[in-house]
């Protein structure tokens, strides 16, 4: 799926780095725990998380994650957006829960890592 298709599937709102919308993604990982995210070896995955702070972006930078979905209607802050732009990461805000987003994307063919 492309990042645009992912965003449309989950009623997402793309916050930054629209230039990546046509990039394709095969896998997703859902966690609020950044240490768990850091164990993910695959790259170019989508991270689904309820944690909306700078560490979400820093962790994604280290793990080379190109797209982050912020769940449960949480908002991305200015610092988050600026750091995401610096690293060319697409941020998507989504009103739904991590469970809903995961279910929708799984059904649409996005694969789990484990």
């Amino acid at each position, binding site marked *: 799926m492309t990042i645009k298709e992912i965003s449309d599937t989950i009623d997402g709102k793309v916050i930054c780095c629209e230039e990546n919308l046509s990039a394709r993604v095969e896998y997703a990982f859902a966690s*609020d*725990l*950044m*240490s*768990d*995210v*850091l*164990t993910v070896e695959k790259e170019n995955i989508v991270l689904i998380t309820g*944690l909306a*702070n*700078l*560490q*979400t972006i*820093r*962790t994604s*930078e*280290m*793990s*080379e994650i190109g797209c982050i979905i912020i769940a449960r209607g949480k908002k991305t802050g200015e*610092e988050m957006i600026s750091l995401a732009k610096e690293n060319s990461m697409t941020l998507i805000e989504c009103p739904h829960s991590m469970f809903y987003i995961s279910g929708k994307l799984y059904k649409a063919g996005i694969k789990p890592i484990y």
Partner: protein
Amino acid sequence: MQFSHKIAGGDFSKAGNVASAVKKVLRQMNIDHSVSKRVVIALYEGEVNVVAHAYSGVIDVDIDETRIKITISDKGPGIADIDQAMEEGYSTASPKVRENGFGAGMGLSNMRKNSDAMRISSVPGEGTIVEITNYTKPDPEKNMIIEDLGREPFVKELR
């Protein structure tokens, strides 16, 4: 190449700045991507540990053609039982740390997984030194070698 960064305990807004800077340096030096990714993940976890637990810290980075050696030294409460601290799931992190997505007791074990050699020295009430070494050309046999860095006493050698 050698350089150092100071970090302040408790300041989550800057946690990861050093790992980010090192990532850029390793990229400029054309270090193998699979190597540099492990280095920056181990370093990031170490940096978060200092921010989460210590009062202040220094990160020394030393890179040559064979290996990347990072020493993270902090002034802080130290670790009384290193074996326990290495266990996945064991954590003494505060609610503030958990709010930042850490504190699940995975930090040190993630550092171990992402380094070729790791040594920890800690004095309770004073601080902790963690050294991680990653070889620029991954070699399973070489990965077992732990250099004698001449900074005793190290109370725990890992791998």
